[in-house]
């Protein structure tokens, strides 16, 4: 009877501690960060403008200018602006150019900030 009790006690000890043999399992927490896909548009293609020729026409050279145009086979017609409007046109073009530069610059800065080359 005494031996049975000893065996029973030993079995109970093994049973109770059996779950912890080899230490408890470590909890591993994984956090995988998946970055948002890049939009990655290429920068807009640069403009290639065609050259245009300005002709200055005054009351004195008008006939000569039209004669030259006819001789060159060009329709003798000119679309004109006054000297003041020429200045306005120059200013307008300068402003368009600046806006284009500003927008392009902003685009570059946004791209640099949100889609840097080295970050994945």
């Amino acid at each position, binding site marked *: 009877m*005494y031996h049975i009790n000893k065996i029973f*006690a030993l079995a109970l000890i093994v049973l*109770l501690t059996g779950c912890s043999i080899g230490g408890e399992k*470590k909890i591993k927490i994984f956090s995988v960060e998946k970055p948002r896909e890049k939009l990655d548009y290429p920068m807009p293609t*640069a403009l290639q*403008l065609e050259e245009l020729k300005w002709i200055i026409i005054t009351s004195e050279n008008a006939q000569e200018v039209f004669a030259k145009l006819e001789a060159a086979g060009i329709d003798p017609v000119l679309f004109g602006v006054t000297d*003041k409007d020429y200045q306005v046109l*120059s200013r307008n073009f300068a402003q368009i150019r600046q806006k284009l530069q*500003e927008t392009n610059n902003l685009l570059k800065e946004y791209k640099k900030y949100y889609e840097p080359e080295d970050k994945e």
Partner: protein
Amino acid sequence: MFGQIKMVITILLIAGIAGAGMYVMKLRSDNAILKANQHKLETAITEQNKVLKQQKEDFTAILESNKKLNVLINTFKKDLQDLDKRFTKKNRDIGKLAIDRTGAIERIINKGGVNAARCIELASGAEHTDAELKATLKSEINPECPALANPSYVPYQ
């Protein structure tokens, strides 16, 4: 009598061992929970440090970008003022000048047109030519947009 005492001691022994085992199990379970908590805290601290570092970098990048844009806006203002100056310097009247020196003004206007067109190309993202990049003299620059076309050019004081 002696047998009964033995029985009681055995039961007490078994109960004690069982209690101790359960207590050890509880301790191990608590330990596992604490370890998991610690791991979570350490991960959170690392994440927080990462976020703080990123915030600092972002802030610097934003400041840098703002500075660049402000410089650009100031350049625009100066370019427009320079353009106005070219038309009106010393009470200049380009209308009268064009009547007096038609050929010369026509050449100047056409050259200005070519330069202005080049400025638009550059503003739209065109690559600079070597000559544009190396230009340091007033005679070499594109006077319509020197800051954009000729980054090496420093205006004379």
